C-alpha cells in the first residue's frame, strides 16, 4: 500500500538546502479510485492537486515536512476501510483526503472518528457526512447531493420545467438523490409525474427512457451516477428525447462525464458544480499548471477540492504548530478559508465547507471554442443558499 509513496521534492529540497530541520512531519493519504469509474474525476489527478498544494504552500520553508501517499479503494467500502485502518494504525497517516463514492467515504468517516485523525472529503456526494453521520473529525469540502439537487432542481423549475420524471438508480444513493430533488421541485411549485427505478448498474435504459418520454414530463431527472448517467444521456440522445422538447437534468455529472460523452451528445444538459476551470483568472492559471502535469486533462471540482483542502489543512498545521486532530479541526473551522479555486469561504460546525455553487449548461459543439470548453455559466448560487441549512442536517455537533 505504500508503493506509490512519494517523498516530496519539497522535503528533499529542505535537506539539500541545509535549512533547519522540519519541526512537524505530516503524512497525507490520498485515498480514491485509481482504476475504476471515478479514476478520471479523482484518481492520480487528486494526488497531483495535493502535491501542488504542498508546493504552493511552501511547506518546507515553513518547517513542515509533508509526505503524500496514495492508494486505490476501488470504490468499495470494505477496501477503503481496510486501507484507512492500516494507514492510521501502521503507516502514521495524519489526514486522509478525497475518497469519492459515498459508501467508501462513510466507511472512512467512521474509522477516522474511531482513530481520532482528520478526514477531508472531496469526492463523495452523500450529505449524511455532515448530517446524520457527521463527525468531529470530518470536513466535507467540495459538494454534496443536497447542493446538487437544490442547484439543478430549483433552477430547472424556475426556467419553466415544472413537470418532472425521475430515472433513479435502484439503491440507497439514487433514492436519496431522487428524494432531495423531488422535495426541491415540489417546494418550488413543480410536480413529479413519474418515477422509474432501474437496476444498478444498468446498461440498457431505453425502456425506462421510453416511459419517461410518454409521461409528458418536461424534465427528466437522472438520479444516478457514473456509467449509468453516461449511458442514460447517450441513449436519451439516441431516442430523440431532447429533440422532442424534454430537458435532461443530470443530478450528479462531472466535467469528465461530459468529456466522455462528447458535446454532440451532452449538449443542453444542465448541471451544478462548485468549480470550473474557466471561471476566472485564478482558476485558469491554476488549471493550466494542473493540466500540464495531468496529461492535458483539466481539473474536476473534486481535484480542485483536494487542492484547497490540503492548503487549508496545512494552514491549520502551521497555525497550531502541531498535528493534534482536535486542535487542527477546531482551527480549520475557526479560520476562514481562502484559496484561488473556491475563493473565500468557511468550514461550518458540522464540517460542511461553504462556498458558491454554479449552475452550468453544456455548450453545443458550435459554441465550444476548443477542448475542455464545455460549460456556459447560467447562474451562481450564493454560498449562504448553496448548502443545507445547519439546523436541517440533524448533525449532533450542532447544538
Amino acid at each position, binding site marked *: 500500500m505504500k508503493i506509490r509513496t512519494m517523498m516530496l521534492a519539497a522535503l528533499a529540497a529542505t535537506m539539500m538546502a541545509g535549512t533547519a530541520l522540519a519541526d512537524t512531519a505530516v503524512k497525507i493519504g490520498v485515498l480514491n479510485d485509481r482504476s475504476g469509474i471515478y479514476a478520471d474525476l479523482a484518481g492520480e489527478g487528486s494526488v497531483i492537486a495535493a502535491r501542488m498544494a504542498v508546493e504552493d504552500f511552501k511547506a518546507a520553508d515553513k518547517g513542515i515536512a509533508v509526505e503524500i501517499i496514495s492508494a486505490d479503494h476501488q470504490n*468499495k*467500502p*470494505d477496501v477503503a*476501510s481496510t*486501507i484507512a485502518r492500516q494507514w492510521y494504525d501502521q503507516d502514521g497517516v495524519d489526514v486522509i483526503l478525497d475518497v469519492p*463514492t459515498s*459508501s467508501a467515504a*462513510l466507511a472512512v468517516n467512521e474509522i477516522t472518528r474511531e482513530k481520532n485523525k482528520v478526514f477531508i472529503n472531496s469526492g463523495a456526494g452523500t450529505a449524511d457526512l455532515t448530517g446524520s453521520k457527521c463527525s468531529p473529525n470530518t470536513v466535507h469540502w467540495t459538494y454534496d447531493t443536497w447542493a446538487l439537487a437544490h442547484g439543478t432542481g430549483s433552477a430547472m423549475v424556475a426556467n419553466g420545467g415544472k413537470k418532472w420524471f425521475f430515472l433513479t438508480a435502484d*439503491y440507497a*444513493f439514487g433514492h436519496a438523490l431522487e428524494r432531495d430533488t423531488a422535495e426541491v421541485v415540489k417546494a418550488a411549485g413543480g410536480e413529479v409525474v413519474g418515477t422509474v427505478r432501474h437496476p444498478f448498474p444498468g446498461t440498457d435504459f431505453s425502456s425506462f427512457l421510453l416511459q419517461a418520454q410518454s409521461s409528458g414530463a418536461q424534465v427528466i431527472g437522472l438520479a444516478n451516477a457514473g456509467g449509468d448517467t453516461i449511458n442514460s444521456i447517450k441513449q436519451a440522445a439516441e431516442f430523440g428525447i431532447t429533440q422532442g422538447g424534454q430537458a435532461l437534468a443530470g443530478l450528479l455529472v462531472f466535467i469528465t462525464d461530459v468529456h466522455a460523452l462528447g458535446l454532440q451528445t451532452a449538449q443542453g444538459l444542465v448541471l451544478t458544480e462548485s468549480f470550473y476551470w474557466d471561471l476566472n483568472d485564478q482558476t485558469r492559471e491554476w488549471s493550466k499548471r494542473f493540466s500540464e502535469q495531468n496529461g492535458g486533462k483539466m481539473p474536476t471540482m473534486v481535484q480542485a477540492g483536494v487542492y484547497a483542502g490540503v492548503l487549508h489543512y496545512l494552514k491549520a498545521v502551521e497555525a497550531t504548530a502541531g498535528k493534534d486532530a482536535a486542535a487542527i479541526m477546531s482551527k480549520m473551522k475557526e479560520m476562514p478559508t481562502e484559496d484561488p479555486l473556491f475563493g473565500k469561504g468557511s468550514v461550518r460546525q458540522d464540517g460542511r465547507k461553504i462556498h458558491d455553487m454554479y449552475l452550468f449548461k453544456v455548450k453545443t459543439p458550435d459554441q465550444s471554442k476548443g477542448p475542455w470548453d464545455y460549460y456556459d455559466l447560467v447562474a451562481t448560487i450564493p454560498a449562504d443558499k448553496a448548502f443545507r441549512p445547519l439546523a436541517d442536517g440533524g448533525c449532533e455537533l450542532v447544538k
Partner: protein
Amino acid sequence: MAVETSDPGIALATDTPSAAGMSRQHLLIFAGLLALGLVAPFVLYPVFVMKVLCFALFACAFNLLLGYGGLLSFGHAAYFGSASYVCAHAAKAWNLTPELSILLGTGTACILGIVFGSLAIRRQGIYFAMVTLAFAQMVFFFSLQAPFTGGEDGIQSVPRGRLLGLIDLSADLTLYFFVLAVVFLGLLLIYRIIHSPFGQVLKAIRENEPRAVSLGYRVNRYKLAVFVMSATLAGLAGATKAIVFQLASLTDVYWTMSGEVVLMTLLGGMGTVFGPIVGAAIIVTMQNYLATFGAWVTVIQGCIFVVGVLLFREGIVGVLSKWFKKPL
C-alpha cells in the same frame, strides 16, 4: 463428472488416520499452524492476519465441496456474503453479542445452502457451476435492494461487542484470539468431515458416481449434505469477517468473490487439507500489497488462473505433497 485431482495425493489421503483421528504429520502441521497463529499478531498487523484467517476458512469450506465432493460451485459468495450481512445486522441493529450474531449469520448460510443446494445438485458439472453462479447473482441483487443491507453503503460501523457479554473485543489483539479460535475450530471440523466415513463415501462418489449408486448410496443426499456443510462453514467465515472489519458490503456477495475463492483453492491445491490455507494467505497478501496497482491485480490473478490450470493443477501443496510423498 468428477474433478481430476492429483492421484497420488488422493490415494494417500484416503489412508485411514490413526486412532487419535489424525495422522502424525497432520497433527504436527496443525500444531505448527496454531503456533504460527499465536505468534503472527505480534509480528504482523493483526487485522491483516485476521483477514487471512477468515479467507483461509472460506477457502477450506469451499475445498470441502470442490476437492472432496467434486462439485465446482461458482456462487459461494452467496453464503459468505449473506452470513456476513445477517451477522452485521444482528450485531448492529439488534445489539446481539458477537458469538450470537456469528451463529445467526452461519445459520442463514446453512438455510440458503439447503435451498440452493437442493436445486443445484439436480444438475452436474458445468451446469452445476452455472446454476450456483446464477443463484449467487440473485443473492447479490437481493443484497443490493433489501432495506436492511444498506445497498451500496453496506452495513457499516458494526460493533465488535462483548464476547458472551463479558469480554470486550474492541482491541485488535483480543479479537484476534477469538477469531483464531473460531477459524481453527472450523478447520478441525472440516478435517474431521474429510476423514470420517461420510468423507470416504464422498470421495467414492467423486471418483465414480455410478458405482457409488450401484453400491446403494443415495448419492444426492451425500451431495446435498456436503453442499450444506460447505455453505455453512463459508457462512461462518463470512460472519466472522463482518465482525473483524465491522462491515458487511456488496463485495462479499459479488461474483468476483466466488471467483477468488476458486482461485485460492486452485492455487493452494484442491483436494488437499492445507492447500486452501496457503492459497488464501497468498492471494490476500497479494491483494493487500499490490492494491495500488489497481487493475494489474486482476491481470495477475488471471495469469495465476491460467498458469495454474495449465501447468500446476495440483496447486502448491499438491506439489509439495508429491515431493514428500505424504498427503498434506
